[in-house]
């Protein structure tokens, strides 16, 4: 099964980090990815720039509406994601518990939904 692990934290908390702390966190994330790759559990992943770089769009009545920033104001902001290959939810939890920001932010685990087969032409 594929699971998407969405990593959230308070950007303010990360902004308050010293340069060294930020450097260490990034190195830990690199280490985490290496560990997942070694186990053959890593399918994809990426860290994201902060939410002040985000752009939100909507299509309404054929019209494209674009706005600055994320769609919703939340306590924690999306900071990155991992696509994991795990046998079941327990394994996904166990793998995601190693994601470094889990220690101060949170990680939401979502099972990937496969789309139904394409309609015959």
């Amino acid at each position: 099964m594929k699971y998407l692990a969405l990593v959230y934290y308070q950007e303010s908390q990360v902004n308050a980090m010293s340069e060294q702390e930020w450097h260490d966190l990034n190195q830990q994330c690199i280490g985490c990815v290496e560990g997942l790759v070694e186990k053959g559990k890593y399918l994809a992943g990426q860290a994201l720039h902060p939410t002040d770089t985000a752009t939100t769009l909507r299509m309404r009545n054929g019209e494209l509406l674009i706005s600055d920033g994320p769609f919703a104001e939340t306590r924690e902001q999306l900071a990155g994601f991992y696509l994991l290959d795990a046998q079941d939810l327990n394994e996904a939890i166990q793998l995601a518990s190693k994601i470094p920001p889990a220690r101060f932010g949170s990680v939401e685990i979502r099972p990937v939904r496969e789309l139904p087969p394409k309609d015959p032409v």
Partner: protein
Amino acid sequence: MPDDPLTSAPDIHRQLDQLYRQHSRQVLATLIRLLGSFELAEDALQEAFAQAARHWPQQGIPAQPLAWLISAGRFRTIDRLRKQKHETALPPREVEQLIESPETTGDEVITDDLLRLIFTCCHPGLGREAQLALTLREVCGLTTEQIASILLQKPATLAQRIVRAKRKIRDAAIPYEVPEQRELPERLQAVLQVIYLVFSEGYACSSGEQLLDVQLSAEAIRLARQLVQLLLATEAMGLLALLLLQDSRRETRLDAEGDLITLEQQDRSRWDQAQIHEGQAWLERALKQGHAGIYTLQAAIAALHAEAATPDATDWGQILGLYDHLHHQLPTAVVALNRAVALAMHRGPEAGLVALRALAAEGQLQDYHLFHAAVADLYRRNDQLDLAMQAYQQALALCEQEPERRYLKKRLEQCRFQQVRDDKRYQNKGLDR
């Protein structure tokens, strides 16, 4: 079970009923593993018993009835899936796997399956309310209507919650397994909490008229007993002991009008001695095994109450010591409150009031009616009736359960009566002088 073809049909139906009551959950638990789905397993369970009702009167009861039922349920389901292969909700690949999967239905597997079912229903990925509803539905086999009425919820809301929980188990692939040794202590805590919740829901419904629901506490004891049989963990034994000891007082907790009777005033001769003995025996085993946790400690406290022939004979010193340990492991306001009451019983009301005032200063308990009731009770014992009445009023303002409200009102009246009497006595003395 007799394997006698001459056994009469009504007799077989009676035995089948009994088999359903006692073992349908085990059959279900194994079918969930074999079919990989709660929904398919539930249908299979009904089909298996329907088949038995049809065939057993002619063929006699098979030598291994549970294995027969499991096999029949599995076979019928796979047969049905094979026929509707193209219309089924399951992806074709999974149907193939199901059809090819080997059949294993030894007795030892069946008991493991029940554990799998319990741990799956109490998986931390499900919310506490979903865990509770799912456990009552799948492990206890109660109907959605029964659970809704017990938990004071609309049947539709409850049904929705159970459907959602099952969907999450399926879509997020919550595994149908007993946790590994490494995770077991933590996962067991969730199971114990749910069982305790089942018991306390039955012991005192959170609001409304009825305070006792005998059936539900019996269900919880049955669950705890099953868990202990499957898994000899200290805290599982501690929980079973605690439930048995608390339940031994069930008959004496309410008077004929349905009003609460405090531990102090209960008729101890009517406590269920058989339950007390069994509770004590499980407690001893738990204590011998070591690593006493919150349930074993609470059971030890309950046992000390059960062992006291009269309220005065209660070993409050030891109870206080146990509360200290409990508070160390479970530092909640409620435990602190009970500890303060034990302190008052051991060293006098003044000491208890000092501890309660310290708790109030922390500001955790102001909205909790039992806190004010405890304060009131200690003032009353200390002959500070004005303060006692004030605290009873505060407790009443916060309390929603009708029997407890009646109890508090009764106490308040007693204080008023005592005060008037004391005043008269004082006036009479004044006249004498």
